[in-house]
């Protein structure tokens, strides 16, 4: 390894079930690194991407993380999509004291010294989306279907949402919760149930935490069953431009998604990014999406932190990162918080016929990511602060740091 290149690890699945989502992130990282090198690299050194394929296999994630850090000696890693992949690499990053940038919306309830969460915490996606639907513009929704894939992210998100809705005075009877297995493909019964639930005379909406693969058949069934967004809108947290590229969106117009970024947002930084991306992938139709933006922000933050610390040493960069600001693609400036989450705008988009989203609502200010939900018993007293308290789970009641 020559001393004037610095390695960056890219830990995204290129095969297996998650390749469908993660491959794009690998390409996005390659582009960002490429761009940075064109600008002269960082601290005078060129960056070199090291791509590995953890193949949607969680133990392999841990193995590959270890390989990146110890063998390839990378200075930081950008990677993971599912929470379980993040959980499986966590001990490795802690042990070897390196940095992971995690770009996907997740269930929260975590703040680790070695991880920087550039995707949304539940308060940056789920809660605002529900707020919107309850508003007049959102349709004054009174009855809720919380539909999700049966795993931790949807379960936690729905737990938070349920607590939130109850606190907002929604009756228990007006909430229906439904879980389906990964890759569920026969949605007839559930769509019929939703239709039935929605025929109680109150405006009904579906909050969907359905995971990747199951979405296409879900939307196809919705369209088949003739459920229009004007009847029962569906707001999804895991359906972005990339996922919609696989569906015929004609019949889905008006269904919603909540993200912190949409490709359709008109901002100079965004147009620039889209142009570069399409040039980089040599595909003028290639779409961008929210986790890509998260990597964009995370990568720029890392560059700035390195410059601030004047070192590539992970320990120094970790210390330098909180407080770093980097522009996002929608015209704002995101900031890394002491809890290792960032500030983000929250947007609600409606699906258009061309597979893009129309932003119909967005928060005025950037929302700071909250690691520990205020709506869960176990975590409402917890707080993460890696700057002052040097603790990821400080209990404000007992004034002590957890394990």
């Amino acid at each position, binding site marked *: 390894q020559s001393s004037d290149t610095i390695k960056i690890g890219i830990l995204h699945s*290129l*095969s297996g079930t998650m390749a469908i989502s993660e491959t794009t992130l690998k390409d996005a990282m390659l582009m960002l690194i490429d761009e940075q090198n064109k600008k002269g690299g960082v601290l005078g050194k060129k960056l070199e991407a*090291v*791509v*590995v*394929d*953890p*193949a949607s*296999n*969680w*133990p*392999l994630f*841990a*193995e*590959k993380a*270890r*390989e990146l850090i*110890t*063998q*390839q000696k990378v200075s930081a890693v950008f990677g993971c999509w*599912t*929470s*379980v992949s993040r*959980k*499986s690499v*966590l*001990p*490795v990053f*802690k*042990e070897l004291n390196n940095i992971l940038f995690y770009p996907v919306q997740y269930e929260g*309830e*975590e703040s680790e010294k070695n991880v920087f969460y550039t995707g949304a915490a539940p308060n940056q996606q789920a809660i605002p989306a529900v707020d919107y639907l309850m508003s007049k513009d959102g349709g004054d929704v009174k009855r809720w279907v919380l539909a999700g894939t*049966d*795993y*931790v992210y949807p*379960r*936690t998100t729905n*737990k938070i949402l349920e607590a939130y809705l109850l606190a907002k005075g929604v009756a228990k009877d007006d909430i229906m919760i439904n879980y389906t*297995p*990964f890759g569920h493909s026969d949605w007839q019964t559930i769509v019929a149930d939703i239709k039935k639930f929605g025929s109680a005379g109150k405006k009904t909406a579906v909050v969907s935490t359905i995971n990747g693969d199951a979405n296409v058949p879900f939307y196809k069934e919705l369209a088949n069953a003739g459920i229009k967004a004007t009847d029962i809108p569906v707001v999804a947290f895991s359906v972005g431009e990339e996922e919609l590229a696989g569906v015929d969106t004609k019949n889905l117009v008006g269904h919603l998604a909540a993200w912190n970024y949409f490709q359709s947002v008109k901002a100079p930084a965004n147009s620039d990014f889209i142009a570069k991306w399409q040039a980089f992938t040599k595909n003028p139709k290639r779409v961008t999406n929210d986790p890509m933006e998260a990597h964009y922000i995370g990568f720029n933050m890392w560059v700035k932190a390195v410059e601030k610390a004047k070192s590539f040493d992970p320990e120094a960069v970790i210390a330098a990162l909180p407080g770093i600001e980097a522009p996002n693609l929608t015209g704002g400036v995101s900031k890394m918080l002491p809890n290792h989450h960032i500030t983000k705008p929250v947007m609600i988009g409606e699906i258009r016929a061309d597979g893009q989203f129309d932003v119909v609502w967005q928060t005025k200010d950037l929302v700071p990511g909250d690691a520990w939900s205020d709506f*869960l*018993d*176990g*975590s409402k007293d*917890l707080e993460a602060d890696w700057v002052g308290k040097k603790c*990821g*789970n400080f*209990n404000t009641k*007992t004034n*002590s740091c*957890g*394990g």
Partner: protein
Amino acid sequence: MTSGVFSAISDRGSGVFIAILVAAALLIPASNLLLPPDSALHVPTHLVSLLGKYLCYAMLAVALDLVWGYCGILSLGHGAFFALGGYAMGMYLMRQIGPRGVYANPILPDFMVFLNWKELPWFWQGFDMFPFALLMVLVVPSLLAFVFGWLAFRSRVTGVYLSIITQAMTYALLLAFFRNDMGFGGNNGLTDFKDILGFNLQADGTRMTLFALTALGLVLCYWISRVLVTSTFGKVLIAIRDAESRTRFIGYRVEHYKLVAFTVSAAMAGLAGALYVPQVGIINPSEFAPGNSIEAVIWVAVGGRGTLIGAALGALIVNFLKTTFTTGALAPYWLFMLGGLFIATTLFLPKGVVGGARAFWEKRKTTKAAAETAPAAE
């Protein structure tokens, strides 16, 4: 005919295999701990954990070969026994965290706290004690195998029918363990372990010990399997594989033989899983995925079905290639190489690596012998 506990491993292949493993168990940790990192002979920690993981897979492969290679039971659900052993160990490690979890709950693991569980479910009791956990590592998989096998073998479910229900078993367990309500941490599984028997899991010393134990565990599993297959028991297994009903007609209780083999095999798979978890740092339901069990079958086939050493070797080869191929420029294409390897193995080494090598030697021997002696036809 010689037989018995020691003669089972008195052949040359076994000798070499065991010697290599024992040497690895002693020398690799020693080199890691005693030699300076810049020494040419120093084995870096990450390599040791990698090897440790492979050896766990090799144990699983040996367990599978015992039932598939010798008894014709193509289990497409052996990953389930591996995972159950892993979970039993994971539960112990989880309980060891104690109040050091993020929510600082002294009893409840983190995932239970944040899903609002109020108390520890009954099936988590006792896992704070290592001996109990160790017992469960063996008992849970073998109990499942026993009950499952008792039903299936008694009903004379054989061939693909048996394969498919073993697959259904692991698939059902996969779905069940995915459910958060089951109380095993949902799809995130059990993770963030701190220490084992008071030793820090991240410490090199602990890692080396675990590695050495895994290597010796593989020796143990191999030994047990050899004792089984070299005794007449093994001959009966082969007889069952070849002509099950004929075996019955000379008075053997086929279901008992299968049950013994299946249960022992499940216990070995469980042990492999238990050694795997502390080294890998996580256990979650994806270990139950049917694809994993099929992959294990493939290791056995690559190495050579019905050879035990081949099974272990197959696991090492395939996983080593997987590790190598998934890094760097070739990463997006590694499936081509792995797929190609599988096809090439079946076409050119129909008995697997070890089977192929043996056939090669035998052929050389017999052609020589044939050249020297008179016609084989009597």
